[in-house]
């Protein structure tokens, strides 16, 4: 079976298992909700059905028990208890491993396997006293082994088929059955019997009036095989099969072998004419005689099911996924790439139109540009995914961790409908996980401690997301003990990260926790406190062109703000010129532009900072930084950029204005280059470098700090330190 389908199965199962987990957690707070149980049942059901088709027997068998338990829950024969939920959660986890084992051919280690088997055993014991204690899942119907009567000669079966009137309306075509029948042998003759056919003008074309007589010549076809050909039509067609003469003697022999009573019974029925020989044989062959005993019980059972259904009419299912379409992410990537190329091609056309000066051309170009912009926005929106699903994964994490650490913590989620580019959703999970673990482990205090300082015994953790001027902010908020400014400061000084003689702002000090290997935790737990992680968090977020900052109050809690751009593919850029080269600054980071010459005469310019309306603004001369000599006669400008609560100025030669920037990643060679984050292609076909604003701001602030404590002017050496 194809790998593509297997991978889809893996992806789909993961999604379904996630749904199951969410449902289980919801069920804990709302054990009576039938919709939740139905949802879980359906997830298990789908996994089981599909796993069976792939032949993943382990997955199928395990899911079967899970499915049975869900059915027992639905029938209220098993009660929802916290223990059962915990058990089902573990079962769900193990099922995830089984799916991975089946698809990716990984091996599950013994510990997990034992745990999984244990859980299975427990679940089975829950089922013991219910109606759902069946042991084995149904296997794909195997072809029944039949005693074939081997004849060397061709024998002839005579089949009479009286199709009922509604056969066409039921989507059944007699011809296709005959075609299939030909697989069993040679169809010697088909006679059409038209006695039921009315006069043509009276006939209803939707009605079947025909009967057929078919002679099938075959070496080995059995009655059951022929019946299987017509299995779909057996309710809509009276079939009389007359077996070849040679067979009749086999049946007669068969009847003789039957137990005495049945033999007598059949004898009696035959002799008084109640049954023809053929019908008798049919009965015996299908063992219908024996089956009659079980029919009354079966009837009672069906009746019971019917009554149950009438008493509990299934609720109308919520319209989930209405008008939604699942699209392969690769297809979207191709679309976004093409749109990117379109934007570039549009810019080129625009440039050429402007050079030509043709006003009509310019007009049509401008309306085209507007459309391209709209296409760009809609295409990018296609990749947007709600962050809610990522958030809800943390329900489980918080639940498990708080149990482990013996803390009572409530997780509140808000802003789950906020949309974010799919790639970012994928990459933000790990950093978020780290922040959440940190908050639970170090942030929120033990219950007794909380009560002592007058906080509510239950800790609170919030995950929040919202849009803020062209970017997305994700917040991790806890009401724990906050960061200890003094402790961090001392530790930073000890490690030589901060100069104790200098004034440092709170945010500068808090930022120290993002330094590699920085930890103030006295004891290391297996969750966090090893001093690895926060720097990785920062690095991950910065690789998404985002920033992270901390807002904390000792004793009352911490808010971590992660700010991410809306998309990674196309941004609004601000084009500037330095020397002969063009650079792009992401527009959402630009605050204002100031002409430098005015400031120069105002004598407010110092070595590398200026006085901007009473505030110190450090700046970098991009010309020096990138080693390009200034243009003759250019009037220098400062572009004020802001990121992560810090502002800095970038000195450029010329401002060229807004530009739709299609981000092209830099090659591996440039991976470690600081100060640049990507590249783009301009309308003229030239390459422009996209500036890494957070990196540059950090640089500028750092230089400013160095200057203010009198360590001399570093600006001249910048280009070498940056490269």
């Amino acid at each position, binding site marked *: 079976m194809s790998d593509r389908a297997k991978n889809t199965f893996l992806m789909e199962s993961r999604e379904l298992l996630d749904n199951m987990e969410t449902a289980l957690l919801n069920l804990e707070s709302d054990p009576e909700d039938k919709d939740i149980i139905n949802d879980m049942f359906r997830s298990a059901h*789908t996994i*089981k059905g599909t796993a069976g088709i792939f032949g993943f027997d382990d997955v199928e068998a395990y899911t079967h028990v899970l499915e049975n338990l869900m059915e027992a829950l639905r029938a209220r024969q098993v009660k929802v208890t916290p223990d059962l939920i915990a058990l089902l959660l573990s079962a769900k986890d193990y099922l995830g491993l089984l799916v991975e084992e089946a698809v990716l051919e990984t091996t599950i280690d013994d510990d997990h396997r034992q745990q999984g088997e244990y859980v299975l055993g427990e679940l089975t014991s829950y089922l013991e006293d219910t109606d759902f204690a069946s042991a084995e899942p149904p296997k794909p119907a195997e072809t029944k082994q039949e005693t074939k009567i081997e004849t060397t000669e061709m024998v002839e079966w005579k089949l009479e088929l009286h199709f009922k009137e509604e056969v066409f309306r039921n989507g059944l075509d007699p011809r*296709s059955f005959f075609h299939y029948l030909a697989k069993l042998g040679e169809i010697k003759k088909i006679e059409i019997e038209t006695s039921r056919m009315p006069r043509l003008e009276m006939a209803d074309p939707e009605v079947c009036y025909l009967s057929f007589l078919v002679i099938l010549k075959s070496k080995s076809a059995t009655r059951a095989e022929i019946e299987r050909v017509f299995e779909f039509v057996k309710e809509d067609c009276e079939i009389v099969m007359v077996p070849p003469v040679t067979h009749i003697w086999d049946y007669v022999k068969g009847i003789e072998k039957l137990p005495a009573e049945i033999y007598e019974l059949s004898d009696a029925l035959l002799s008084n004419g109640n049954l023809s020989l053929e019908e008798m044989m049919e009965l015996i062959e299908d063992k219908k005689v024996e089956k009659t005993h079980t029919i009354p019980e079966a009837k009672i059972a069906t009746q019971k099911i019917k009554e149950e259904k009438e008493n509990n009419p299934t609720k109308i299912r919520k319209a989930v996924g209405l008008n939604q379409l699942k699209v392969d992410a690769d297809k979207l990537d191709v679309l976004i790439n093409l749109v990117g190329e379109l934007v570039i091609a549009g810019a080129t056309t625009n440039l050429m139109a402007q050079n030509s000066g043709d006003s009509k051309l310019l007009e049509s170009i401008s309306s085209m540009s507007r459309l391209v912009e709209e296409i760009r926005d809609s295409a990018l929106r296609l990749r947007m995914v709600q962050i809610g699903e990522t958030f809800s994964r943390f329900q489980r994490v918080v639940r498990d961790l708080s149990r482990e650490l013996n803390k009572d913590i409530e997780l509140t989620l808000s802003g789950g409908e906020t949309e974010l580019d799919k790639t970012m959703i994928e990459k933000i999970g790990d950093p978020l996980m780290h922040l959440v673990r940190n908050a639970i482990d170090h942030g929120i205090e033990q219950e007794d401690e909380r009560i002592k300082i007058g906080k509510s015994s239950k800790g609170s953790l919030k995950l929040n997301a919202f849009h803020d001027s062209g970017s997305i902010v994700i917040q991790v908020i806890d009401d724990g003990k906050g960061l200890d400014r003094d402790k961090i400061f001392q530790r930073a000084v000890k490690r030589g990260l901060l100069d104790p003689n200098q004034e440092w702002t709170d945010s500068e000090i808090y930022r120290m926790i993002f330094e590699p290997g920085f930890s103030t935790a006295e004891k290391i737990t297996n969750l966090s406190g090893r001093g690895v992680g926060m720097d990785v968090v920062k690095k991950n977020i910065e690789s998404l062109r985002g920033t992270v900052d901390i807002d904390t109050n000792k004793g009352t809690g911490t808010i971590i703000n992660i700010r991410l751009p809306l998309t990674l593919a196309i941004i609004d850029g601000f084009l500037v010129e330095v020397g002969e080269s063009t650079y792009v600054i992401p527009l959402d980071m630009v605050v204002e532009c100031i002409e430098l010459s005015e400031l120069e005469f105002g004598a407010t310019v110092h070595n590398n900072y200026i006085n901007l309306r009473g505030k110190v603004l450090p700046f970098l001369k991009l010309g020096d930084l990138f080693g390009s000599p200034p243009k003759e006669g250019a009037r220098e400008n400062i572009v004020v950029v802001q990121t992560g609560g810090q502002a800095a100025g970038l000195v450029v030669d010329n401002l060229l204005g807004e530009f739709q920037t299609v981000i092209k990643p830099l090659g591996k060679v440039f991976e470690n280059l600081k100060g640049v984050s990507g590249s783009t292609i301009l309308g003229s076909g030239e390459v422009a470098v996209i500036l890494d604003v957070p990196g540059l701001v950090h640089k500028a602030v750092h230089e400013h700090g160095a200057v203010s404590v009198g360590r001399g002017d570093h600006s001249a050496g910048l280009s070498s330190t940056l490269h």
Partner: protein
Amino acid sequence: MSKNILIVDDSMSLRQVVSIALTGAGYNVIEAGDGNEALTKLNGDKIHLIVSDVNMPGMDGITFVSHVKQDANYKFTPIIMLTTESQQEMIQKGKELGVKAWLVKPFKPEQMLDAVSKLILP
């Protein structure tokens, strides 16, 4: 001209497996994730056979089939329904609507091909 088969199931991997088997046998496969989506595929183009799951989010298979049976273009289209043994009352409802071909999950792709070739001519 290869025959068009519409497959309706909420499991994308099931659709892919069935689709691989059917395409391999020379059929042209159209996929839909639930009844609502499947209805949008009934746009007047000839569909020779419909394979539909019973239990789906959005619109379930039985509701979908009841729409198909009211559509003059498609009411004679052969239908195979996919189900599990635990859904007897659904099977009953489906049979009342005139669905005669049922395939119990899990099935092997060959069983699907077999069922299809009983219902439509190649």
